[in-house]
């Protein structure tokens, strides 16, 4: 194993922590690691990230199921609906130019982040974990 390989493993570790912690499956971190750190094209980075996501999300997801953080009902709908959407999305991604795809994705993330930040800011700091639904 070369030093470059070791670096990828370390980067994977930090992406994994982020994934298990904030529930992003790792893709949000894996893709920039590859495009910025290793000069991958956007499409190759997305495809490779999908392969790495599966075991990462499994390992991060299981403790969360055990601790009762996962709402299995809505989870099933999102996973099932998402899987259908993902095939369409993946086909679209292969034929849309990479930079355009990245900008649209970035715009979504920023808009959502601003809204979520505003809502969280308004909540009292004492707000603890949400009750189970």
């Amino acid at each position, binding site marked *: 194993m070369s030093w470059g390989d070791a670096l*990828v*493993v370390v980067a*994977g*570790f930090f*992406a994994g922590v982020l*994934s*298990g*912690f*904030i*529930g992003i*499956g*790792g893709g949000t*971190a894996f893709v*920039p690691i*590859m495009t910025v750190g290793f000069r*991958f094209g956007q499409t190759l980075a*997305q*495809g*490779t990230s*999908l*392969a*790495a*996501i*599966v*075991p*990462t999300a499994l*390992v*991060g*997801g*299981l403790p*969360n199921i055990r*601790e009762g*953080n*996962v*709402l299995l009902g*809505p*989870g099933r709908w999102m*996973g099932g609906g*998402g899987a*259908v959407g993902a*095939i369409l*999305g*993946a*086909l679209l991604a*292969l034929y849309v130019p990479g930079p355009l*795809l*990245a900008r649209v*994705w*970035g*715009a*979504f*993330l920023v808009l*959502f*982040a601003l809204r*979520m*930040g505003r809502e969280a800011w308004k*909540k009292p700091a004492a707000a*603890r*974990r*949400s009750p189970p639904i």
Partner: protein
Amino acid sequence: MIPLQVLWAGVGQHNANANSLVAIIPIAIAALPVYYFSHQWPEVDLHFALLLIVGSVVGAYVGARLLGRIPERELTLIVVAVLLVVGVKELVFP
């Protein structure tokens, strides 16, 4: 998926994060073959993915354990910060 659950469905941040993590498994499995088989060459670097996985499965376990130990509001603010950093990066340097 996380912002949609929190903003539109009123799901708590911990549940939203955990749901998203589990729901992403079938999603990634469904999309992977499309990336692998649609072009003349596979748009998946399996060697690189394997190296990422070696680190990320350990990290994911650590991260998942951390999730249970942080208050709701702080967790949301961390999610917001990560989304902002990645979002701005993609917008400015696509």
